[in-house]
């Protein structure tokens, strides 16, 4: 009889209650130009933190610095004071590389890399973990498909499967839904939310869509030019005046069915009838000046 896969395979080893991630004064500079300027953060185990901010605000760079992909200063430590390794942090990149000819099983299997020694091959247990993660995410029938042949939503589920196979207590997501339509975005985020509740995963996700961020994250961290501007529950951080300033455009935050919705303020009403393009308005302004 073949041994049964461990119960809840795909779930990380149980955490001590104190176990979480802490960063202090994390800074990243490229050629003297500081792009992350001192991020302090303390995460409870099982918490979802949403990183928000305009393009170039340092969200991705901060995530990558936690993984050690870019040189950083400052401290990053787990609750027990240890520096995190790839068995502690799994990562879902913004545009995952999907190698030609690689099948879903082969791809998800790579999530076990951190658990293998330099010359070690995967064991039966690694194999069972892959099988149970695929089954858990409803990917069993995709096992032999090539990753290149999957649709955007399917591919994203496969990347999540790889991250789960890594069995790390902290999951880092870089814009997990930037390539997906609204339906698939919700599907992916719901899946992550469900997994973190079941497994007690701690999630840090860089998110473009502020409404989605408000809906899924417990707390939000707003970055501008690499500096933290606000940290707290979505209701606090999503302040229209603050967002308008940071994003450089008037922004309104409304509540709809108990969810926060963030929308750009309506365009200013035009003085007279007829349609005007921005260029029309611009040229009229020029006339007024001259």
């Amino acid at each position, binding site marked *: 009889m073949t041994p049964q896969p461990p119960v809840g395979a795909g779930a990380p080893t149980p955490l001590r209650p104190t176990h979480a991630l802490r960063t202090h004064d994390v800074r990243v500079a490229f050629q003297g130009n500081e792009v992350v300027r001192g991020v302090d953060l303390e995460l409870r185990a099982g918490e979802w933190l949403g990183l928000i901010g305009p393009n170039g605000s340092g969200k991705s760079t901060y995530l*990558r610095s936690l*993984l*050690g*992909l870019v040189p950083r200063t400052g401290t990053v430590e787990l609750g027990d004071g240890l520096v995190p*390794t*790839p*068995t502690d*942090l*799994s*990562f879902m*990149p913004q545009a*995952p*590389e999907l*190698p*030609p*000819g*690689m*099948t879903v*099983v*082969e791809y998800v*299997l*790579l*999530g076990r*890399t*951190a*658990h*293998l020694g330099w*010359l070690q*091959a*995967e064991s039966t247990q690694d*194999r069972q973990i*892959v*099988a149970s993660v*695929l*089954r858990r995410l*409803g*990917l*069993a*029938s*995709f*096992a*032999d498909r090539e990753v290149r042949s999957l649709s955007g939503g399917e591919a994203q589920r496969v990347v999540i499967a790889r991250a789960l196979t*890594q069995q790390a207590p902290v999951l880092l997501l870089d814009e997990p839904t930037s390539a997906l339509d609204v339906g698939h975005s*919700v*599907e992916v985020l*719901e*899946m992550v*939310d*469900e997994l973190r509740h079941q497994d007690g995963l701690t999630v840090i996700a860089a998110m473009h869509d502020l409404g989605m961020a408000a809906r899924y994250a417990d707390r939000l961290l707003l970055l501008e030019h690499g500096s933290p501007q606000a940290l707290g529950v979505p209701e606090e951080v999503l302040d229209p005046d603050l967002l308008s300033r940071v994003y450089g455009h008037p922004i309104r935050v409304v509540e709809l069915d108990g969810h926060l919705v963030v929308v750009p303020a309506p365009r200013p009403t035009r003085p007279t009838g007829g349609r005007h393009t921005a260029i029309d308005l611009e040229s009229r302004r020029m006339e007024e000046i001259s």
Partner: protein
Amino acid sequence: MRSRTPTPEAQRAPDALEASVARAFRRPVAALLGCVALLVLAILASASQGAAGLPVEGVVRSLVGAVPGLDVEQTLTTQQEQVLWQIRLPRTMLAALVGGSLAVAGAGYQGVFRNPLADPYLLGVSAGAGLGAVLALGFGLDLSWGPIDALPMAAFLGAVLAVIGSVLVARASFRDPATLLLAGVAMAAFFSASQTYALTRLDETRAREVLSWLFGRLATHGWQPVGMLVPYVVLAGAVLVLHARHLDVLRLGDDEARSLGLKPARSRLVVVTAATLITAAAVSVSGLIAFVGLVTPHVVRLLVGHSYRLIVPLSAVLGATFLAFVDIGARTLVAPAELPVGVITAFIGAPFFSFVLWRGKANP
């Protein structure tokens, strides 16, 4: 999604999934056995074909009889025995070892550089070995050491020097495969120029000898070159096969590989070192044999897919098989003269590779 209904795939029989997973893990037993059978066939054919044909049955009996503990009736004459053991077999084994070396090194380089055009001569190995050969053959530079002749030694050192040069030029950028590749191009250009200059200083007979070596030629010097090659093939070959898993992770790119816990620069250094040593050793006894290292991994991909765990070991066996077969042609097509084996591999390899490119199947 919170109350996800069971999708059809979730209800699929679990053993189908287990089978898929098992398939992904399956050691390439069937394919490997098939290729090894082909290799045995190639060795038998190569050992019995030549200026003096040997009966295949007698060859098999002689080979089986050589295994300690196995006693079979021998049917070859003493003279045939001598031809088989002193001329044919060493030459055949050399062809197989060189072919396997070049192909496995090619697979390693293609994995490390994530480039389907990578071949064993990429980092200046060919030009470095060529310069060494010119100096040894043409100018009598004598670096012979112990049982190793001056020519293989000079070619080996030239090859290793060129690669060390490439790695040093790329230095800090060893993290970036593209930079290393460009450094190899620069190094190859420099060594080629030196080699060409040295060639112009030679008289015609010697220049001809050097050129024929450069085209790729399997020596018929008994077991000595085979013995020289074996340690490299075993050691470097084992290193490459054991790192095939790393090459699969590297296919995701350096950032993702690092986030998964691999150290790409270190893996790359190990694989490049092993592939370079095995190539330099092969080149030092056989000259430059084109296309084996480039094409064999692509053939394997067409057969078994893109996982390096299959590509690396199968390339070794298939490259050995291919060169053993090609060597039969080299010895018999224009007998009693001999064709440089590198000319035949290029004649076969170039059109085949063009075909693979045209089909659009050349992915690393």
